[in-house]
């Protein structure tokens, strides 16, 4: 592993350890996500919404709202005690900090989805899906989570030093995530509908979105953190 990769790995492990040790935050995030899935699953069933649309909506509503809770903690941990300054001096590159934060946020989101997806699957009573459909579902969830993590880390880094960061974070996050949310809902719905060919364009869009929101902040994070 290169020196650069080693530093990113150390930061990534530190972030996961910090996240796991603050069990209050972790638990409240998971409970909030589970509550959203349960409430929306029953609501959609009462409204007699088709299963494919219901699952897509429930998943992305719960993942989006839960992620706004977890993502804005990312840099708040660094801001406390000005640990960020010590971190930057030790790492020597702000881009590495962005990458490590994004990866740890992505891991947290994927862990959250490990609980939310089966729960929604059972509550909405989705019938079995074929391997292609299931693969598409996993792929879309990964691409969507990657986008959420990248944009969330970027916005969190931009706003964390501001006095009204908690207010600004969701306001700035939502408009940027519209392509992810629309693409995610359409692709999940298509996966369950066995019409995967119709959403190829959206999959490419999700991938491009993720790459842009990973590469650009990585390069410009010096300016972003300097504020």
């Amino acid at each position, binding site marked *: 592993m290169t*020196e650069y990769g*080693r*530093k990113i790995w*150390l*930061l990534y492990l*530190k972030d996961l*350890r*910090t996240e796991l*040790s*603050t069990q209050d935050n972790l638990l409240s995030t998971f409970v909030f996500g589970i509550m959203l899935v349960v409430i929306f699953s029953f609501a959609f069933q009462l409204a007699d919404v088709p299963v494919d649309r219901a699952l897509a909506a429930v998943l992305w509503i719960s993942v989006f709202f839960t992620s706004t809770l977890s993502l804005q903690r990312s840099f708040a*941990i660094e801001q*406390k*005690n*000005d*640990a960020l*300054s*010590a*971190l*930057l*001096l*030790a*790492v*020597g*590159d*702000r881009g590495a900090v962005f990458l490590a934060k994004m990866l740890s946020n992505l891991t947290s989101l994927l862990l959250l989805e490990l609980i939310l997806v089966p729960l929604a699957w059972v509550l909405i009573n989705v019938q079995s899906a074929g391997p292609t459909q299931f693969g598409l579902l996993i792929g879309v969830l990964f691409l969507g989570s990657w986008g959420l993590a990248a944009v969330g880390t970027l916005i969190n880094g931009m706003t964390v030093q501001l006095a009204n960061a908690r207010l600004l974070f969701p306001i700035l996050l939502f408009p940027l995530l519209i392509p992810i949310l629309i693409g995610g809902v359409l692709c999940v719905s298509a996966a369950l509908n066995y019409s995967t060919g119709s959403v190829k364009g959206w999959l490419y869009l999700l991938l491009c979105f993720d790459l842009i929101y990973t590469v650009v902040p990585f390069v410009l994070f010096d300016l972003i953190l*300097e504020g």
Partner: protein
Amino acid sequence: MGDILAVENVSKQIQEKIILGNISFTAVTGDLIAITGPNGAGKTTLLRMIAGLMTVTAGRILWNQEQYGLEHGRIGYLSHQPMLYDSLSVLENLSFFAKLYNCYSPQSVQEILTRVGLWLARYEPAAVLSRGMQQRLAIARTLVSTPRLILYDEPFTGLDREGRELLLGLLAENQPRTVQVLVTHDLTLLDGLKCREIKIEGGKMVEEGVASD
């Protein structure tokens, strides 16, 4: 041969406000520079620019005649804030930074923690430590990479008499092999140390004192 830190006509402007204007000084290995001045004079801004944590608007900061930034990687920075992770233990905090600096060994970590009097508290989370103990851990973090440039921003804040003596001892011990720049509003805390005073007021350098004991 020693190292040379050169601050050349450095200015910092944020939006319309000039925080610092035309600050210049040089320091070589063995120097302890004390930057003094009233609150809001721009002392911390200057220190953060020397560390590479803030960019300069004009002028340049050189280390051995070369421009440098965060990538320099061997700058010790001790602030009045501990710059630590509350949820990690004393040992985890120090080990994490030592690994980032690529100078981790269990022996060196134990040695530093013993030196600052925190070895017995190594499994305590940083959050439960007293202010003074957190500052001792911050001293350990600063020293773990054996920096050649050490920056101190009001480092005596929150330290008890024993902690102040420990820090003064480290300042004296580091002096022969490092360039040290210290921001303080109270020079009497440095009694007994040979230092050079640079006084800043309203973002301007108003006085550069001669070496004193």
